[in-house]
């Protein structure tokens, strides 16, 4: 057992950054986004700092703007499962979290991939369950965009149920492997399952014995009401967006209340916002650094593209160093950009444009500067002590349980955090200096799973 801890522990994780303009590929220190060495370096830095897990996002179609592949951000990424399995071979303890879509996969395959990854990493796998419905992505798959938008959470929920049923289908001691007695299995035909619901009608035998964690740790990443319910009902952790302390407290309180409604303990789900950072010796230097990164993140060409996403109009004639568009955004379904979750999240285009105009007028910013200042996602800015204070305050006041850090550089971008802030958090006794457990469930302080006992009847 671990020592009782006096203070709430901070959970830290690392997001390998990629396909959006957070990642500054133009920096001389920026390395490959695809070579395995970059992933190894990144994972090993995170493990050396005793992070809970590494996080990989996924997108199943290259994004487009005006019907052409979007070329200003990093483009291209590896297969999630494959790179995580390889990383299991060059790390020992850090959790391996993969984002896997429940729309363009089938439960049998996803269950055997996660069960396999969990075996191959000795219990370090986690699944960020995402869902999509768009016909745009569907064009890369046999079934196309077959799912209605209103069905996507239904599909995700039943998909997760199905995967849970599958990985639970092998009892813990199904493999006896008694050589002398010649008995490999405790009982014949293990892994029997039957699943029949509105999304799936499948039956047979699952073919991967129970893995060290039983099932992967489950992450949820949607912000909608349906997404929050999905998390409260089924997830172990939430990958969320970072905001103010108050917004974080409200979000966490909402999740805790939903957990109670679903009959789960209030701390059964860890709330982990994704957060960028800029750290320097002094707060003033850190803010200067952050401003520089913001401009790197928004090149003149990127400024036009991001403005087009908000305005939902062709703004290619605009001067990025000139004023904002003098017309209002076209409200409604984006006709400009495809394959981009962030565009779908903007629901208040007119109001946002108004805020941008007001800020530009107040500060005398041109378009590029406005996009850089208003569209940025930077949050933890300051000296190491300031950032450590911020992190502690957010966690102590239950605005979250920790952070998923998103550096702006690959592969060395974590270093500024791990070398300066992590030692402070360790000194303060809120971040581990050694892994106490071996599995990701243990790192996250999640309660042991209930023994599988036919959770679901056909």
């Amino acid at each position, binding site marked *: 057992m671990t020592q009782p801890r006096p203070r709430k522990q901070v959970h830290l994780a690392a997001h390998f950054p990629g396909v959006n303009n957070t990642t500054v590929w133009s920096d001389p220190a920026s390395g490959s986004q695809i070579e395995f060495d970059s992933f190894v370096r990144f994972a090993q830095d995170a493990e050396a700092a005793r992070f809970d897990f590494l996080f990989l996002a996924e997108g*199943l179609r290259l994004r487009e703007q005006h019907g052409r592949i979007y070329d200003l951000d990093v483009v291209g990424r590896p297969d999630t499962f494959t790179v995580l399995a390889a990383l299991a*071979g060059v790390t020992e303890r850090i959790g391996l979290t993969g984002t896997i879509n429940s729309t363009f996969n*089938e439960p*049998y395959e996803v269950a055997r991939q996660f069960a396999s990854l969990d075996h191959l990493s000795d219990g370090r796998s986690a699944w960020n369950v995402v869902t999509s419905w768009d016909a745009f992505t569907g064009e890369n798959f046999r079934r196309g965009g077959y799912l209605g938008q209103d069905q996507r959470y239904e599909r995700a929920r039943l998909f997760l149920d199905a995967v849970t049923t599958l990985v639970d289908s092998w009892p813990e001691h199904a493999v006896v492997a008694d050589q002398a007695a010649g008995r490999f299995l405790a009982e*014949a035909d293990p892994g029997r399952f039957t699943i029949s619901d509105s999304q799936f009608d*499948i039956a047979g035998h699952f073919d991967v014995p129970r893995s060290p964690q039983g099932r992967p740790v489950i992450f949820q990443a949607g912000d909608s009401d349906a997404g929050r319910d999905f998390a409260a009902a089924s997830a172990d952790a939430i990958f969320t967006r970072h905001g103010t302390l108050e917004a974080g407290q409200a979000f966490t309180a909402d999740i805790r209340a939903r957990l109670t409604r679903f009959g789960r303990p209030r701390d059964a789900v860890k709330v982990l916002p994704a957060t960028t950072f800029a750290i320097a010796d002094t707060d003033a230097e850190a803010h200067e650094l952050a401003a520089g990164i913001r401009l790197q993140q928004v090149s003149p*060409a990127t400024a036009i593209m991001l403005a087009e996403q908000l305005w939902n109009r062709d703004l290619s004639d605009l001067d990025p160093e000139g004023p904002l568009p003098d017309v209002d955004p076209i409200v409604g379904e984006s006709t400009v950009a495809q394959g981009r979750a962030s565009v779908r999240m903007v629901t208040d285009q007119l109001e946002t444009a108004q805020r941008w105009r007001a800020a530009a007028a107040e500060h005398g910013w041109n378009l590029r500067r406005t996009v850089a200042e208003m569209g940025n996602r930077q949050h933890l800015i300051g000296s190491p002590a300031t950032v450590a204070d911020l992190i502690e305050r957010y966690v102590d006041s239950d605005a979250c349980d920790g952070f998923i850090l998103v550096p702006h550089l690959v592969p060395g971008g974590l270093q500024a955090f791990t070398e300066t802030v992590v030692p402070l958090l360790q000194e303060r006794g809120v971040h581990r200096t050694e892994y106490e457990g071996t599995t990701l469930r243990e790192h996250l302080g999640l309660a042991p799973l209930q023994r599988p006992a036919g959770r679901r009847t056909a």
Partner: protein
Amino acid sequence: MPTTGRVVCRMDDGTHGQRQRLPMLLGIALDGAGWHAAAWREPGVVADRLFSAGHWVDLARRADAAGFEFLTLEDGLGLQAQPWNAVAGRTDRVAGRLDAALVAARIAPVTSRIGLVPATSVTHTEPFHLSKSIATLDFVSRGRAGWRPQVSPRPAEAAHFGRRTMAAELTDAAVTELLDEAGDAVEVVRRLWDSWEDDAEIRDVATGRFIDRDRLHCVDFEGRFFSVRGPSITPRPPQGQPVVLALAHARVDGRSPSSLVPRSDDSSAAVRFAVRSADVVAITPADAVQLRELLDLVAQESAAAGRTAPLRVVADLVVLLDGPDGEPAAERRARLDAADGSPLVSDAAIMAGSAAELTDRLTQWWGSGVDGFRLRPAVLPDDLDTLARSVLPELARRGLRTDPAPGTLRDHLGLARPENRYRSTVDEGVPA
């Protein structure tokens, strides 16, 4: 352009006179505790570790050190050791497997030379996922990825997906249909591997462009079975095209652990798939006569398909050698058969004998013109260790092969890195 780094042997094969040949290619087929159903009971096997990373890392390192050009990993989408359309109901055989592509990825960083060839279903798995999975295996192994596409004809496997049904009785027409679909799947995967040109990533700070999108290509595949738009989300892998290996069974018995292509007296359909889709074809001749027949069949089908690219042909052999403690192979085989309660059967020929006998057999078959072998050890690691200790060194001594130098799997097989089918035509000498 990178070409093969392999030494070319000058061989006198007795029938075709002097001709240049590659060294004998050797692959090792890994599956569970080995290819005998009772293998897991052997003292050299840590039977309760078959689903651990340690088991696979240990086998892969032994195979890498031994000098095999590649290893293969079996897979399926259902429990093995069953008749092909039913469940066995036994407790005395290994059941369960880890995903082969992920096992390959897990062992990639801890091996250095050996090619990694996982099997995957192309019947139920999306070609788009397969393409990025194998491309990524190529990245994490630094150019050592291969892939064995296989069809999944079992009704039990189809029921795990619930999207199509398979007839209990498998007809030749159904086999052809599945293989046609497999051909389309491989075509899509190959197009997706090429959907990024090698120099697509430009990082042009002046214009703010990370890629030159004119060097990315939609694959726009539309076939009888599915359509896929592309491009891939994963850049072109180090080998350009990872190595595709197809197993063209001559015949298959349902009890074989590898029985993923169903019984068919006519192997032409599988060979036709292989010559259209693969870089390496594995055949399963029962004897030297069948070996020559199958080599002829492959040559005929290659010609009929208008194939000009090299196709490596390897023969599959189950190898059951003298035991680690000197137990003669015949006795060892009888003991293992008795333990399982039934004799070892396989779609491939079974070579039960001493290391010297196996070496002679390989030498003789090599003389018939086959490029190499995929050896299926009856017991892992025992028979793998005997191969490493006694067979590979003797083949090297006879001048038939050398251990592969560091390099890609294509290098090991003497296959050049292919041009990209979508490569833009550029006016050379005209400055941009």
